[in-house]
């Protein structure tokens, strides 16, 4: 039996009202893949990522995590809804997300943020979770900030905490939605550095980004979304040196 891909998305559709935002996107990530998702503002990158962990409910299409399908059904109004919310919650705990706006829990300290998921969702024993949290904070270079509240950290530090919080769940796949876009330029490097380390560890990652350098150098595959469809995809070396479509070429020239 061939090994299951870590994440498989099949023919995903999502509309907001009459506005079709995602029009049949499929994507497959093998374990250790880093997929960079590019696209102009409004092309549906965030919506696509949010459909994977059901922060938005797709209208149709299937999501498989390590071969397990997230089961959906139609409710009596004909809308697509999860069949079993428990299954969705379990899937979400294996799909960590890092947001553009960090979204740390402001009433908790850095350490409490990192402990929250393992202790209260995965029910990891506290001592074990603490040990791991300390190691993760060391990994993102924030051991000395464990007792700070998020509001007392810089943006770059907050995003590194958010990455540690995501890692604490031992996720199968990590979803990043423009993790550096809200940062001052001088703080972007520290976050990208942590993400490069993760890629080197063969973490499976989907990264929506406007950082062309990161997509080109770090991703194993780059996908360009245009108006809710995959317009061009492939190895970054190929895409960046010799784009096939006019749209991607135009996008690249705008980015540079």
């Amino acid at each position, binding site marked *: 039996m061939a090994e299951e891909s870590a994440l498989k998305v099949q023919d995903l559709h999502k509309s907001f009202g009459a506005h079709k935002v995602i029009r049949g996107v499929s994507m497959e990530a093998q374990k250790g893949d880093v997929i960079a998702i590019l696209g102009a503002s409004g092309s549906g990158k965030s919506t696509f990522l949010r459909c994977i962990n059901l*922060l938005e409910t797709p209208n149709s299409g299937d999501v498989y995590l390590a071969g397990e399908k997230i089961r959906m059904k139609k409710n009596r109004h004909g809308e697509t809804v999860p069949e079993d919310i428990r299954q969705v919650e379990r*899937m979400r705990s294996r*799909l960590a997300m890092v947001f553009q706006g960090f979204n740390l*829990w402001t009433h908790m300290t850095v350490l409490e943020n990192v402990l929250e998921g393992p202790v209260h969702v995965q029910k990891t024993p506290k001592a074990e979770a603490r040990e791991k949290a300390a190691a993760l904070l060391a990994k993102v270079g924030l051991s000395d900030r464990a007792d700070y*509240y998020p509001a007392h950290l810089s943006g770059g530090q907050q995003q590194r905490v958010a990455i540690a919080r995501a890692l604490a769940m031992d996720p199968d796949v990590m979803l990043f939605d423009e993790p550096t876009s809200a940062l001052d330029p001088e703080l972007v490097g520290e976050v990208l550095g942590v993400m490069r380390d993760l890629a080197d560890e063969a973490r499976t990652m989907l990264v929506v980004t406007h950082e062309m350098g990161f997509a080109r150098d770090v991703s194993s595959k780059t996908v360009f979304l245009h108006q809710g469809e995959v317009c061009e995809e492939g190895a970054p070396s190929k895409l960046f040196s010799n784009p096939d479509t006019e749209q991607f070429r135009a996008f690249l020239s705008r980015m540079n």
Partner: protein
Amino acid sequence: MQAVLDLIPLDIGLILANFDRFMWGVWMTLNLTFLALLCGGLLAIPMAIARASRHPVLNPMVWGYTYVFRGTPLLVQTFLIYFGLGQFEAVRESWLWDPILSSAWWCAFIAFTLNTAAYSTELLRGAIIDTPKGEVEAAVATGHSYAARMRRIILPSAFRRAIPAYSNEVIFMLHGSVVASTITLQDILGVGRWLNGRYYLAYEGFITAALLYFLIVLAITRLFRWLERNYLGHLAPRDSEAPASPQ
């Protein structure tokens, strides 16, 4: 000392002679107010969750309740329970009559509890609704269930943000508790009125009562300042203070 006392146009001696009565009044005011705040606060939590939800039955039901209790004076509510319910034969004959609805203390306690529950519900609902959307999404994305989100993220955050507004509710309730003196209870104002009536005084009783209420408000204000320092430090701007350690 005597010379100073003579300058004050108050019968200090009389006030001091009845000091223990005033202390009983303080006790009555405090136990009524704070028991009502405690029970009303506990009732407010599930009701605020209902009001912050889109539940088609619970939300409008709780809304109707808070609308009525916030739209009518506490004095009227207390009278309706104390004088009104006794008009019904069924009430007088039910197990609720003795020892509960026939007792002035219980009637005041029930009215105060229902009143503060209504205000606290709407106050907490506001704080729940104002929880930053991103923080709730982060909990959803982590795999928290609705209950876990409420218990771990939304309520702890909302309680903290509600502290400043809730301090007004506590002071409002303390002041409102004077209503107890209109249904025979010897709270602080009740003792003041008794003193004035007993000795045909113009204001010794009221001045003493005012001073006692003032001192209690002072203590409440201090308590809330302490709560804000300890539980709202996480929202203080950067560098304004040394980082607070987790409470």
